[in-house]
């Protein structure tokens, strides 16, 4: 099964030096919600906390978009994240969110189809979500009213579509951090 080969978790390594906890400003420590005695804060967090104000703002919004209850089901949000990450070439985000989709659905058929580049094997709802995610992620956007009509045709209401738009868009953001400020590989 190709998915079990391709979808091992990756490790992310920054291109720039992360903030050292011993040298962090009070604002940076507060943003990381750690005390100077904390030993382990990820390199990802310590890299982005170079700018503590945007770090906090984005983290709060990201968590709301991906994890708040109600509205669009979580696998659909992960599928939107995956579609964006594949367009934007963020290998780390793509693998992370493909794995999460498979965990949430207890099934890796969808992510396997996408990694084999066979989107035609998706069901109607997943296909509409994935196509929209890809088309909205291109610069400039290629999404059209037909994409929204396709989402409505598979039963999605306005609140769910707004959730999906945000899940795709926040990965237009996250991909441009993870894939730009570092690289991913299997080395810890």
């Amino acid at each position, binding site marked *: 099964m190709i998915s079990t080969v391709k979808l091992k978790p990756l490790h992310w390594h920054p291109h720039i030096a992360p903030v050292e906890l011993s040298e962090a400003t009070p604002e940076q420590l507060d943003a990381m919600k750690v005390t100077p005695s904390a030993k382990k804060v990820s390199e990802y967090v310590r890299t982005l906390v170079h700018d503590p104000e945007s770090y906090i703002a984005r983290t709060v919004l990201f968590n709301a978009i991906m994890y708040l209850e109600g*509205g669009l089901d979580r696998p659909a949000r992960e599928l939107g994240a995956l579609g964006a990450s594949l367009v934007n070439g963020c290998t780390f985000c793509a693998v992370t969110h493909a794995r999460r989709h498979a965990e949430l659905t207890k099934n890796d058929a969808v992510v396997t189809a996408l990694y084999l580049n066979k989107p035609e094997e998706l069901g109607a709802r997943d296909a509409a979500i994935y196509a929209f995610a890809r088309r909205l992620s291109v*610069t400039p956007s290629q999404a059209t009213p037909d994409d929204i009509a396709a989402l409505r045709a598979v039963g999605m209401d306005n609140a769910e579509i707004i959730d999906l738009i945000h899940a795709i868009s926040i990965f237009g953001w996250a991909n441009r951090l993870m894939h730009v400020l570092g690289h991913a590989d299997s080395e810890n």
Partner: protein
Amino acid sequence: MIDAMDRAAGLSPDDPVYKARRFRPEFVEGAEICRLSVLTPKDGLGLSAPLRLALARRMAKLNADEVLVSDYETQLAALSPSDELVSLSQGATKLAEPLATIARHADLITLSPIKAAAGDITRLQEVGLDNPQIVALSELIAFVNFQTRVATGLRLMGLA
């Protein structure tokens, strides 16, 4: 209350999409706080407000988002920007350093983030950007690409 995202998407309070957007007050408030954190942060880390707005206008144009282009243009004009920043905002590539390298980076990451490589960060370092500035620039670039997509999606909902 109408916010920046409503204005970008052309939503008014009697619009069903405006109302549906309020199902997620966390997104409404969160997107606005993010906007302020990258355009008018308390600590600009050496990236000026006019530079940030000029880059935002340039990236809105690459996203073919004429509403946000116009909005950023108005905001930039209000700060009496230098001729150099006006040129940057309008997509010029013949600029003095470090603006030329910053603009090149914004274009690359907006249009094709898939092509980003370690050498692109090295270029920013070579024209004098420090690590906080590299992260702040990255967040600004990424935010505008988030904002244009949310605005585009919301607009499409009104057309479908």
